[in-house]
């Protein structure tokens, strides 16, 4: 008591700065104490949560397997199945348990197919889990909405299409991405219709994911990419170019060539690659005629394109560039020249002394 009194008197007689320091010491000490207690609680909680999760997961797995194999042939719900549905329904009010049920259902869904897969789907409806997923779409929190869309995608719930499509221009990229994946996963190429009205950019990451989903479908039906090539959204044009490349959309040739004057350099470079892959010879003449006006990256892309479709007519054009200052252009020009006319190559190879030129010639002669 005397010590305390002495300390308070000491503080009162100290300058404000020292009072402040002692105040900060007090705050720090208290914070450290609280954080240590919280840390202890957190670590224990995380460990026990992991154990509880494992226990519930095992319980639900057992329930679900029993459910799957206790069905009757009349396609009605057997008493055993009904008991499981009731038990699951009871647990669903707890969000922690609900998340484990969903995870277990999805895990099983990924491991099985055919009738058993349909049974899981049915269970998703019977337990009312679908309502929880749909209600997430109306949440104010973007990550809850995204999670809801993902669940609906994973359980192939097509009937909420109209509600999901309203998220097309959602301010959060993650929500838009889930919406796009929902459409493509469930409606295949038809799902790409959202590109017609998409105003926000489609990142390369999103594009790769969509293309990966599309490649999973057996039915690689022909679709019309032309409207997307004309889109005012540059990322939609880029995506359409990728589609043209992968699905060899030769019929869009005219529209592709028109894009050679697109305002975006990135699109023009991508386009030149696609034109090369599709072997659209007509583009070569156009590009040759305006070669100098193009950026260096476009010029490099054009030479790569020419490597894919070498013609003897190219010789005079190539001769202009075998001494170009850019290494890649020089390499391509010499490579194509060697391909189309080895005699000219042999004559030209002695006409350069610049180190890169000599190095390239030497390399091409040995390979």
């Amino acid at each position, binding site marked *: 008591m005397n010590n305390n009194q002495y300390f308070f008197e*000491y503080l009162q007689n100290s300058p404000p*700065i*020292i009072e402040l*320091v*002692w105040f*900060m*010491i007090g705050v*720090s*000490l208290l*914070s*450290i104490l609280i*954080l*240590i207690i*919280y*840390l*202890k609680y*957190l*670590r224990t909680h*995380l*460990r026990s949560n992991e154990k509880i999760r494992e226990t519930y997961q095992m319980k639900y797995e057992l329930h679900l397997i029993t459910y799957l194999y206790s069905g009757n042939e009349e396609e009605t719900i057997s008493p055993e199945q009904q008991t499981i549905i009731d038990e699951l329904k009871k647990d669903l009010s707890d969000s922690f348990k609900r998340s484990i049920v969903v995870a277990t259902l999805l895990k099983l869904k990924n491991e099985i197919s055919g009738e058993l897969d349909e049974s899981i789907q049915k269970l998703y409806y019977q337990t009312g889990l679908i309502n929880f997923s749909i209600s997430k779409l109306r949440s104010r929190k973007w*990550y809850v909405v*995204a*999670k809801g869309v*993902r669940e609906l995608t994973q359980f192939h719930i097509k009937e909420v299409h109209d509600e999901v499509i309203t998220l097309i221009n959602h301010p959060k*990229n*993650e929500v838009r*991405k*889930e919406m796009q994946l929902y459409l493509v996963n469930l409606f295949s190429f038809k799902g790409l219709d959202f590109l017609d009205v998409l105003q926000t*950019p*489609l*990142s*390369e*990451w999103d594009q*790769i*994911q969509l*293309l*990966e*989903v599309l490649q999973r479908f057996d039915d690689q039906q022909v679709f019309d990419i032309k409207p997307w090539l004309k889109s005012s959204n540059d*990322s939609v044009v880029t995506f359409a170019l*990728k589609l043209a490349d*992968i699905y060899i959309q030769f019929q869009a040739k005219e529209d592709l060539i028109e894009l050679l004057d697109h305002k975006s350099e990135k699109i023009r470079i991508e386009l030149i690659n696609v034109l090369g892959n599709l072997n659209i010879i007509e583009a070569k003449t156009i590009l040759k005629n305006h070669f100098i006006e193009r950026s260096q990256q476009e010029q490099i892309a054009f030479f790569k394109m020419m490597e894919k479709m070498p013609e003897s007519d190219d010789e005079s054009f190539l001769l202009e560039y075998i001494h170009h200052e850019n*290494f*890649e252009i020089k*390499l391509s020009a010499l490579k194509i020249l060697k391909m189309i006319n080895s005699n000219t190559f042999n004559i030209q190879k002695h006409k350069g002394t610049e180190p*890169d030129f000599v*190095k*390239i010639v030497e*390399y091409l002669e*040995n*390979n």
Partner: protein
Amino acid sequence: MEINTISIFLIIRYLFFVYAITTIGSYIVLAIISAVETVAYMKKNSFVNYKEILSSNIAPSISIIAPAYNESLNIIENVRSLLSNHYVNYDVIIVNDGSKDDSLEKLIVAYDLVKVEHLINQQIPTKPLREGIFKSTNPAFEKLIVVDKENGGKADALNTGLNISQNKYVACIDVDCLLLEEALQKMIKPFLESTDTKVIAAGGVIRIANSCIIRDGKLIDVNLPKKMLEKGQILEYIRAFLLGRMAWSRLNGLLVISGAFGMFDKKIAIEVGGYDTKTVGEDMEIIVRMRGFMEEQKEKYKVAYIPDPLCWTEAPDNYKIFISQRNRWTRGTIETLRKHRKIGFNPKYNSMGLLSYPYWLFFERLAPLIEVLGILYFAILVVLGQVRWDYTAAFIIMAYLFTVLFSIVAILSEELTYHQYKKKGIGYNLLKIAFLEPFAIHPFIVYSAVVGNIDYYFNKKKKWGEMTRKGMTNPETI
């Protein structure tokens, strides 16, 4: 005269006080920003399906560039680990930087390597090749390229890799680092995700693998090492990566990404001239230069940061190597800040010039020197009998408690996010380190920094220090 002396002493005291308060304030601000950013990152990435990118052959190609110098002891296992990444489109370029041991011979035998003709576009000048370029005849190792060149240092070896890579993105890593299987797709994500800003580089969290169990290039079990020095570094890394860099990433002010693992847009890395071979802090220097370049081009850009623990590395387990490493880090920081001094306080370079650079200068570069000056000043006051010991005690306690508090916040942040140290008892151990670290590690860091300064100004010949590794596959460390 006496009044003047007293005034000077008072001014010095207030300057120290203001510096301390600003330091504490900046740490608090960074911790808050970091917490906000971490929560946002965790929410955002809970939806990502990395498997789709992982298996996609449309995903962009990446070159992993790993320089190796006298790594014969573990080179085979280290390369195997790099080759076991699950990403589809990537190759591994091992640059044997004039090793004097049998690294190359071992690689040739283990991976069925044969010399190949390879045309190099020498965009960045480097030391010439020694034995040449090798590729494997075994299709299982088709991703592997081994380059044998004359010794030129880490930066020169990385530049050789940049010249050889045919891919759009390069991941520069230390050959002895253990990359997690999802590391490449997580690192490439910010590059592919950004639509309105050019991502020029991305850095990840480096975790300490000492005492962890690693088998066949995979992290099996995470343990806390026994030595105080190693434990202290674990806490230091958690603090730096989860609190510091996360916040700087939010402010788009990252000036460094660890040389142990970073990914770059190759075109820009080459455009700025690659790594600087004249500095020992090449990892920081290249980022500062790339950022400076983008600012000068007036292009919207970002240096991204991934808080996931993607790369595990071996930390020094004795004070001699630890001091040598920190000495090098200090010299690297001084060299970079000096070389790019035109950026500092220059509004032309936006937040980089007005925020990141001054922060690094005052709170990283000068911090240990100011600390030592403080101690010297205190010693003078003691000699002059001008010390109020009760006030001194109060200030020391406050500084100590704040350090401990900051460390505990970092531990909590780790628990709430990645929870890597799950085993019972580790929590208590980490707390113990938080209390002991200011005495057991911090003095050595200050000492290394001071010696680093002396070496920088008076021992110009000093380059990289010694870094003897036991190897993460060595039975002693597992």
